[in-house]
């Protein structure tokens, strides 16, 4: 199986098959990231496609230089979500999202938080874009502080501070909903 680096190298030479393999590898991660940011499955699918389309258009300009391909994809996805928000000027719709989810918070430790998934998503949608990024990348995608720092173009210390503020804001929003 070719390594990511080999695939990226071939894709930068406009090798559609190599790009297709990268697409298969990262489709779900990018979709999940966008889904939690826009809160709507249809919009998430559309924006996921656009992310890969942008990636294909710009792949010739991609240079690794310490930034993994997936980090570059997350940045493209982030920019598209920001554009989407600017053009839509409307609140995030969550009805479709809620249809697909079930209550996953069940342990005793979590019972006190009394969260439901929809409330959590609505709260995430009300964070600042940077806070949303750190929350989704760290806790939904399960990335390390270091990986999040690379993706967001910040140092790890800044990510830890941002993580703290994001969790505080999220908790406050959830508390208010209760």
């Amino acid at each position, binding site marked *: 199986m070719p390594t990511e680096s080999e695939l990226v190298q071939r894709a930068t030479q406009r090798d559609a098959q190599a790009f297709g393999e990268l697409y298969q590898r990262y489709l779900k991660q990018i979709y999940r990231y966008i889904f939690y940011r826009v809160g709507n499955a249809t919009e998430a699918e559309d924006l996921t496609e656009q992310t890969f389309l942008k990636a294909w258009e710009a792949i010739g300009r991609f240079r690794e230089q310490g930034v993994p391909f997936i980090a570059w994809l997350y940045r493209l996805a982030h920019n598209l979500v920001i554009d989407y928000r600017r053009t839509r000027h409307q609140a995030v719709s969550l009805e479709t999202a809620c249809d697909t*989810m079930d209550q996953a918070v069940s342990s005793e430790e979590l019972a006190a938080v009394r969260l439901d*998934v929809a409330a959590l998503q609505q709260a995430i949608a009300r964070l600042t874009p940077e806070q949303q990024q750190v929350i989704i990348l760290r806790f939904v995608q399960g990335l390390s502080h270091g990986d999040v720092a690379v993706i967001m173009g910040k140092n790890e210390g800044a990510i830890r501070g941002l993580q703290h503020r994001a969790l505080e804001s999220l908790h406050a929003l959830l508390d208010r909903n209760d």
Partner: protein
Amino acid sequence: MSSFDEILSECLNDIEAGQATIEECLRRYPEQAEALRPLLQTAAALRALPPIEPSAAFQAAAPTRLANLIASRRQPSARLGAALVFGQMRRRRASLVLRVAAVVVLASCLLAGTAYAARESLPDSPLYPVKLTVERVQVATTPNDARRARVFVGVMDQRTHETAVMLRNSNLKQARQTNQSYVRTLSEAAAIVEHVPANRPENRMLLLYMRDRLLAQQATYQRALSSTPEQVRPLIQSTLGQIQKTLDRINSQLAADKSLLVPSAVPYGVIS
């Protein structure tokens, strides 16, 4: 970065790695426990979110859609290139637009005629690539998963017929190719219907329609099997196995929702 940020990060990492529970972390830092607790609980709730995945239908259709999007993005630059060849674009914009429009209309008419002629073409015909292109365009331009599944079923009908004819004509190479294409399309259609809940009338209609067509295709393949040379026989048998597997799945989906087997207004006892 404050020391609280560090403590929070340490606790989050330890909990994520399974090296500590929330309560253990709070006991480790009693002075910060009050501030830490809600943050750690919120993080735990986030980590407990169910994994979200794009729908199977999206995943199945996405590569084709992306390929079409990429292709459609190429067209503007190609048109721009053609326009630049015509030259003097700014000065003659209006006439150029008219010329391009005329060319597009003419090309569309020619293509429509060719596409019509290609409908019944077989793999050994020069028009066969046009038929495949028309099918790809149909799939790509069908906006709805249920309708797309029906388009796939139509394509499968075509591939079944073509495989049978190619086998009859002992054209084994093309029989293999059309059969391969059939199996690919079958898996795309199956990916769509796999997650279709049968408790909606329109979905149930789709499942019944697909079952009908699959049974007809199965019968054609079975008939073809008798005249299939030994070296291609395993391929056809494997295809028959996949058809049967899809049929079994559709049947179990239909059986899972019994509410629609009997119209709700009719008492159950009336129907035998």
